[in-house]
């Protein structure tokens, strides 16, 4: 099968020059809805309007404006916007390498697989091996489709992956916040909570999770399209309130039962 590359570039730093093809590592599975007019049930149109006059402003006449913190609008013309577009380039410039783990999760945005381009698989493989051995990630900069990106160049398995990173200022780091305060925690409760977490311990297996809700939404629309009556699941009853220590104890007891059952099943 295989997917089509969405972009071609060259990873460059110092004497290294590795031509690569870029492929999206994510695919959209969302159920998309459209806005319809209630009567005819057909898609509607969207226009920009002047709120004072209610008149439609044609897209050719719409201007873009930067809003300052005081609410002043600075109108930018097409020429000015054009000048802001970054110069096109095929280079994926690597500026730095940092140890794996240095880039905190909230920075990661969108992953892309990189594959070798032309007949340069040897250069690609050399880069994979060098990065893997060092256990580092490269900080990358590139321009793709008129947009500037920052990213992390990583090795996943035996291939290169480029994950776009959010820009400085777009992430609020946990270190900048003060954690909530309160009375000192009870040692017995901490110990029980640790036991509970340990009892619910498992290996991370992404394949164990499915978007069940998406499946239900698709069933709903299919049933409605076929003119069938839709059955909705019932809500479970709410639990009663107990003290934290009691709840921890009960949870531990239940978690214990769960693991015992799991083991039995495995043996059977």
């Amino acid at each position, binding site marked *: 099968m295989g997917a089509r590359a969405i972009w071609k570039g060259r990873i460059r730093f110092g004497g290294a020059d590795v031509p690569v093809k870029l*492929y999206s590592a*994510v695919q959209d*599975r969302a159920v*998309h809805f*459209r806005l*319809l007019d209630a009567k005819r*049930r057909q898609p509607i149109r969207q226009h920009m309007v*002047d709120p004072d006059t209610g008149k*439609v*402003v044609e897209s050719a006449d719409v201007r*873009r404006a930067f809003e300052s913190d005081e*609410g002043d*609008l*600075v*109108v*930018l013309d097409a020429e000015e916007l054009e000048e*802001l577009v*970054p110069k096109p380039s095929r280079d994926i410039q690597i500026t*730095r390498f940092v140890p794996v783990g240095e880039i905190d*999760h*909230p*920075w*990661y945005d969108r*992953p892309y*697989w990189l594959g070798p381009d032309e007949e340069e698989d040897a250069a*690609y*493989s050399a880069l994979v091996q*060098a990065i893997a051995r*060092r256990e580092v990630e490269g900080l990358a900069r590139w321009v793709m489709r008129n947009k*500037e990106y920052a990213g992390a160049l990583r090795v996943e398995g*035996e*291939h290169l*992956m480029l994950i776009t990173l*959010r*820009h400085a*200022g*777009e992430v609020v780091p*946990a*270190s900048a916040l*003060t*954690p*909530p*305060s309160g*009375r000192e*925690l009870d040692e017995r409760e901490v110990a029980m*909570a640790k036991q*509970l*977490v340990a009892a*619910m*311990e498992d290996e*991370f297996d992404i394949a164990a*999770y499915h*978007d*069940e*809700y998406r499946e239900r939404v698709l069933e709903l629309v299919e049933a409605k*399209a076929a003119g069938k009556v839709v059955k909705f699941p019932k*809500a479970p009853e709410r639990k009663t309130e107990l003290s*934290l220590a009691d*709840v921890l104890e*009960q949870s531990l007891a239940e978690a214990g039962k769960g693991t015992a059952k799991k083991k039995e099943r495995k043996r059977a």
Partner: protein
Amino acid sequence: MPEDWDDEATAEEAVARSFWSGTITFGLVSIPVALYAANRPRGISLRMVSPEGTPLGRRYFDAKDGRALEADEIVRGYEYEKDRFVVVDDDELERLAPERTRDIDVRRFVKAEEIDPMYFERAYYLTPAGNSTKGYRLLAKVMEETGRAGIATFVLRAKEYLVAIMAENGILRAETLRFADEVRSPADVGLPEPVKPKPAEVKRIDAEIGKRLEAHLDRKELVDRSAERLKKLARAKLRSGEDVVTPEERGEERTEVIDLMEILKRRMREAADEDAPAASGGGAPSRGGGRSKGSKAADGGDGGEDLDEQSRAELYERAKELDIPGRSSMSKDELVKAIRRSA
């Protein structure tokens, strides 16, 4: 959840409201929380205006006769065949997930480092709600000390989310994860099997990596250069008064700029045990291990590091308090310098 923001709300509204509140449950323990984005909106969103500089609104029209439609004349539909739609309303979507909308039910704990970065989609901070922070602090402490992440699913606005609940610096956050079928493997993409590299080539690249090795990620490496160029241009025009429309000229009230960091700080500060002795700002005497570096400067408020963490909007508010002249046309760096000079 983030996709909704872009078209439905302005950045300010998105920042100001918590878009979900409910409880995290693990075992039978329930912890009331509110969710806030850990990320600020991306880049700079330019407003759409008329040639005269009037901010424009979005309106919907009937595709056939061009009549403007009111909100109650618009429904949501799914296209099951070309040009054929079934209408689905919010109530139906909500009823499809009765057990999930109020709870993030943590069913498993995994080693945090086992979760591959390619699965991470977005990060949200959890702030304690309700009248006790005990359960919150307990979960944060235990997860941080054991290096575990809790895995859960929950439904919000017609989408199911798989989340990893993680703890850092005594603070819980939820990272939404992509489902397995939303991620492609190298085989799906059709990447070739790796070939054997030449050892000399590996050595040469390794030396180049060595020259560029840094111990830490410097946030300056991630500066949004396009946004900086845009701001520079806009500020120059603002200074010269060229193509500028003020809120007064538009007959508009100035909108309050609220920053995410400010809200998060406030929420964390306000959350306290009802029966605890005046717990404000400083925090509890004992917080156990696991507090990371950085947090000390943040506590102080005026520490050098803290200023650098703030957004321009926050810095601008401080500059206003300090009555710094020319603040409106200053860049972020200029504001930091000016605040440090006058503080």
